[in-house]
């Protein structure tokens, strides 16, 4: 029964998020609304961790699996993917290096300005 309730709570939050998405004037994804909503419910104490923990652990631990069908769907776009393969690889490689560098340097700078991490930055 405990798992069933957790299931209900999480799917209920997702349902409410979908309603909120349809009411919002901007394309804010329902799944992200769900994330914010669930965080707010936990932070305000309306929900306790034990109301969602096991089910959440199950979903988080198997997160990658739930994407399998979306990946398989790429087989319907083989032509498009094939024609853009080189740009795709270059873009993925270049942005990975750029994003890592930009994030790391901005945090180093922030920590230095905060006067923390002196000596080991």
């Amino acid at each position, binding site marked *: 029964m405990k798992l069933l309730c957790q299931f209900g709570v999480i799917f209920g939050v997702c349902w409410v998020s979908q309603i909120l998405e349809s009411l919002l004037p901007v394309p804010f994804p329902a799944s992200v609304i769900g994330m914010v909503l669930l965080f707010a419910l936990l932070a305000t104490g309306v929900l306790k961790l034990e109301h969602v923990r096991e089910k959440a652990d199950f979903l988080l631990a198997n997160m990658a699996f739930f994407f399998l069908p979306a990946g398989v769907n790429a087989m319907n776009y083989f032509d498009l993917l094939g024609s853009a393969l080189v740009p795709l690889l270059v*873009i*993925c490689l270049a942005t990975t290096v750029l994003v890592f560098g930009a994030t790391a340097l901005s945090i180093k700078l922030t920590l230095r300005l905060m006067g923390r991490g002196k000596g080991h930055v």
Partner: protein
Amino acid sequence: MSEWTNSPFFGVAVSVAAFWIGVKLQKKTGLVVCNPLLVGVILTVGLLLALDIPYEHYDQGGSLINLFLSPATACLAVAIYSKVQLLKENWLPILVGCVVGSLVSMGSVLGLCRLFGLDEAMTASLLPKSVTTPIAVSVAQAHGGIPSITVVAVILTGILGSILAPLLIRLFRVKDPIAAGLSIGACSHAVGTSKALELGETEGAMSGLAIGVCGLVTVIFSLVLL
């Protein structure tokens, strides 16, 4: 054969089996390239093509699995909430890093897509590719992208990020575990986070936090920029 596969159970069973093989393969080889999701997708597509099974048959089960994406994304909140102390203590570097990382990611993807002359649908599919898959897919969809292209780009980015992470840490001389963890999470989301966990607990926790915060920041920027 074709009436046998015309059932939602077929798609679910095949997906779980393919993913399970992927998990085993990664454990055995220890290679980041043997990402379970990547292996699972390749095996499933291979099976469908080899036995000439219609995609529509597979998708009866596939769409059931898809249903769990939104709840799984929402549960990132639970992961963030369980590290709320870390978030409170380091909110400024986390915020600065994730905002800069997300902006640079979207900016550089946009610039490179223009450079390669990719069309709007392709650009929208790639734009959110540094954030975790469910958020990336929602953002791509909302702006006219093709979700499955986004999934491919997100997985590729994640694998590249976790392979390159140790190298990048040396290249940019990142000695602080907070900076290292956040940078890995910002550029290679959940796949990178498993690598960050190998580097240390702080790195792992920070990388996990970056997934949620970067996702949120990317959604907000995509609303403003697009």
